[in-house]
């Protein structure tokens, strides 16, 4: 039986890249940091707050997200949304994720034969 620590490390590795994909998908609908965190967690992508907030800024700097301040509510909030560039990158990432899934399925079936 592997230790919880080992399992946790592998799961972390597996999840690391998918946070970017999930964020780009989710932000097709504009949203602010905390609400996005809740949505991702609700859909089975638990992300640490101290990972997500800096990540959003980095994706914005890379031009994959655009942002807009909303000052109508009780506190000012920065709403992010996936840019056109972000959408193009997302398509590539989703394609690659599907390819990984296909290859994995092939491998599993090949191994069972």
């Amino acid at each position, binding site marked *: 039986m592997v230790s919880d620590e080992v399992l946790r490390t592998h799961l972390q590795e597996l999840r690391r890249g998918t946070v970017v994909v999930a964020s780009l998908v989710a932000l097709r609908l504009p949203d*602010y940091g*905390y609400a996005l965190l809740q949505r991702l967690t609700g859909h089975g992508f638990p992300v640490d*707050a*101290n990972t997500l907030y*800096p990540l959003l800024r980095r994706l914005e700097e890379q031009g994959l997200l655009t942002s807009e301040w909303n000052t109508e509510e009780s*506190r000012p*909030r920065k709403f992010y949304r996936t840019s056109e560039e972000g959408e193009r990158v997302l398509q590539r990432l989703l394609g690659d994720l599907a390819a990984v899934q296909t290859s994995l399925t092939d491998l599993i079936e090949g191994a069972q034969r």
Partner: protein
Amino acid sequence: MSSLTDRYLAATLRSVPAGRRAEIETELRGSIEDMIDGRRADGRDTEAAEREVLNELGDPAQLAARYADRRLQLIGPAYYLAWERLMKLLLSFIPALVGVVVGLVEASDGNGGGAIGEGISAAIQTAVQIAFWVTLVFAVLERTNTALHLPAWTVDQLREDHVNRQITPVDTVAAIGFLVLVIAYLPIQQFRSFVPGDGHGNLPILDPALWSFWLPFLIAVLVATIGLEVAKFRAGRWTWPLVGVNAVLDLAFAVPVIWLISTDRLLNPDFVHRWEWLSQADNLHNVATFVAVGTALITAWDIIDSAIKAYRNRH
């Protein structure tokens, strides 16, 4: 606004680039308040909720590093191997070299007793300096993300004789270091033997008459032995030609030494007379016999040992 969140924000923003500080502060403060509100909705009181949220966000320095996309390592995987190799290379010989040189300079200045301590201390200081500066340079490279442009690794870099190398670099460096010390000692003892003479400052240990031929000859043999050590290292193992040359050089050194000491011509007569015990004929004879037999045994052992090792290399 409670002071805990304020302090957390201040600690985080301290190391975030100034130009983006205000915007990050507004956004992060909003996110923290959102998170606190979320927990209060679960029935937590404000103070406990704030503590939980800030604990969850973790070390401000780490959060700031993520905002600034800064690395939290002194030397990362891109530079580590280059750092390690350079460090090993420099530390393998420079401190020892500096130590020997400083020790020799100290000894030639007449401070025979302190020479070893000075040499060791200089070697340690050199090692610390090398380690510090090399690490500093690599840490700066890591921070500035400088490309090293090192040639990529290929199979050609595999050392053929790595596994069964008989002569290690350490052996060779130690042997050459010892030879250099002996060669340096021969002229030094002429002027600085640390044995005070009657009138003049210094009594050479070896007979100064030997400088006309034998001492230069012995020095030449020792220099040739350094060449042999280098050749041995490059071959990586004992070969029969090396065994032959080694035997010739060993005998070229040992035979004159044994012959000179047996005929009372090796030691300086003034030096011998300086010591009452040594100047008695029986004692001098015993010392001479001891030196002669010891030299013969060491020489014989060295020649036999090299021959055994060369023999083992025949598959």
